[in-house]
């Protein structure tokens, strides 16, 4: 049979794609079923067929986790500088601005006081939609302030992580945020505070290797990718295929690295129950 080159409308008019409103239906990456978007969204962004947990923004996470309207944002005035005058294929300030326009957020972390099932908490959520939730000076500073605030006010600290790791564009300063947040957690620990770390898809690199793995209790969402090195780097290093389910939540549970794997729908009650056990 002769090869036939086919052209599609999207190839012909790629600009039109963005103009079309998001589809009512989408294909679930978990089960490949066609699912109704509204139904998936109403189900906490979880596939109603196979319980695939879709990635969500910090804003959506806060709305799902907190008692309605109880979230009071804090440390909202922080935004990135360009200490290194970093330039790869694009200058860092241009990248930041593009991300800010795209997301309407200043950087990749939102924090504030909130209530979860009536219990007061200090909540911080990384935002995957902003530069892959990478941790630079702003994210590190917001987290550190959140930890310090939790320590001072004796509030349970909840951090929901999802991140590609430390932000390369701030190089050494990003690396230092790992030490900064971990040191602040040492003080929370000394003060007898409770820290519940919630790991969601994906949590990797410098974020996993600092505050995310330091929870008094660590809860992971099902099938989330959690690890230090990314799967691609590991595959290149050891030159062999990775076992099925490697670096997924259930794998970490089996290896003793997380306390619980909890579906999204149960996160609120899981957190509330743990707060009660801690007496906070």
């Amino acid at each position: 049979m002769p090869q036939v080159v086919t052209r599609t409308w999207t190839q012909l008019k790629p600009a039109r794609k963005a103009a079309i409103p998001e589809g009512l239906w989408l294909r679930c990456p978990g089960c490949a079923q066609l699912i109704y978007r509204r139904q998936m969204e109403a189900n906490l962004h979880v596939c109603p067929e196979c319980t695939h947990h879709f990635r969500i923004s910090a804003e959506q996470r806060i709305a799902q986790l907190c008692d309605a309207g109880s979230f009071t944002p804090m440390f909202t005035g922080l935004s990135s500088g360009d200490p290194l005058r970093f330039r790869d294929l694009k200058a860092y300030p241009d990248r930041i601005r593009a991300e800010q326009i795209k997301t309407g957020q200043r950087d990749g972390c939102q924090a504030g006081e909130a209530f979860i099932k009536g219990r007061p908490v200090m909540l911080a959520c990384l935002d995957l939609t902003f530069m892959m939730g990478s941790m630079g000076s702003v994210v590190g500073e917001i987290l550190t302030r959140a930890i310090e605030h939790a320590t001072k006010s004796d509030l349970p600290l909840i951090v929901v992580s999802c991140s590609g790791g430390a932000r390369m564009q701030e190089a050494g300063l990003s690396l230092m945020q790992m030490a900064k947040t971990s040191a602040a957690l040492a003080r929370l620990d000394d003060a007898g505070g409770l820290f519940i770390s919630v790991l969601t898809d994906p949590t990797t690199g410098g974020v996993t290797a600092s505050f995310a793995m330091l929870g008094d209790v660590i809860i992971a969402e099902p099938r989330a990718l959690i690890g230090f090195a990314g799967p691609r780097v590991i595959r290149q290093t050891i030159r062999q295929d990775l076992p099925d389910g490697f670096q997924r939540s259930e794998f970490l549970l089996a290896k003793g690295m997380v306390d619980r794997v909890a579906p999204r729908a149960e996160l609120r009650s899981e957190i509330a129950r743990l707060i009660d056990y801690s007496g906070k």
Partner: protein
Amino acid sequence: MASFYQLDFEQPVRELDKRIAAAERGASDDAQLPAPALGGVEPHPPAESGELRALRAERLTLLASLYEQLSPWNTVRVARHPQRPQSGDYIALMCREFTELHGDRRYGDDPAIITGFARLGHHKVLMVGHQKGRDTQEKLACHFGCAHPEGYRKALAKMKLAEKFGVPVVTLVDTPGAYPGLGAEERGQAEAIAVNLREMSRLKVPIVSIIIGEGGSGGALGIAVADRVAMLQHAWYSVISPEGCAAILWKQANEQTNVSSAKALRLTARDNLKLSIIDAIVPEPPGAAHRDPAGAAQALADWIVAQLDELTAETTEDLLQARYDRFRRLGEFEESAEPEPTPELTP
């Protein structure tokens, strides 16, 4: 100088070496005199002619000026020089009575991090250092300086021991990064590093860290949360290796993108000092540490002892507060009192 690693920017030095060798042959009847080996022991012929002396002086000046203005990428290459002294070498040169302590009492003994008590100047210290390995066998055992979780846990276990006895800790950092592999992930590489960061921030004895070669990412920081952090002059320290950064941000790692990313990452000692990530730069002998390991070790030992003299005089409370503040203030951002409206949706 058969198997010597050659750095292309050293070409002028090699040409000078040839002239020195020629002058030596002319000056001496003894044809057995070896050519001056780079990085090896400099031969000292009994009688030096005026020309030879001048050439040697010129060589030293040339080395100093070449290494004074190393580009960031060449700094990385010097930091990875196969004959650059490693933790084991520095410990042998600086310390007396090194008593190595093995194992994390959990899983195994990772040779990529060596730990042990030693005497350094008039101080008793716990030495902790990444080891890359010299010969092929040792390099493989050490995974080229990439530690596993058991290495970080061993380091912490021994640091806790030092804390118990009030012995200060000295760490020597020299790693491309923590090992990315199946076993490392299974045994909690991220958790091991994270716990080290937290525990080192509140260890009740002075900690001094020096990046002696490569300071790659979390694998380096995992033993580098300290009261004083320094870098040897030609070491590098950053959040990722230039190759890793080039592969991600430039979409490919080649000589050209490596040069660009090494520059962008601000990984040299001078840049890190400017960003306050480190507190001092320890100068290396002319032509870098691999040409004069003893000289480099001497400078390093002097700096460490000076820091320990100051730090051991402080109260534990002041020490821990200062350590917390040291890392707390790192990071650059802008802050406005009122949140500005989000940028308008125009391209």
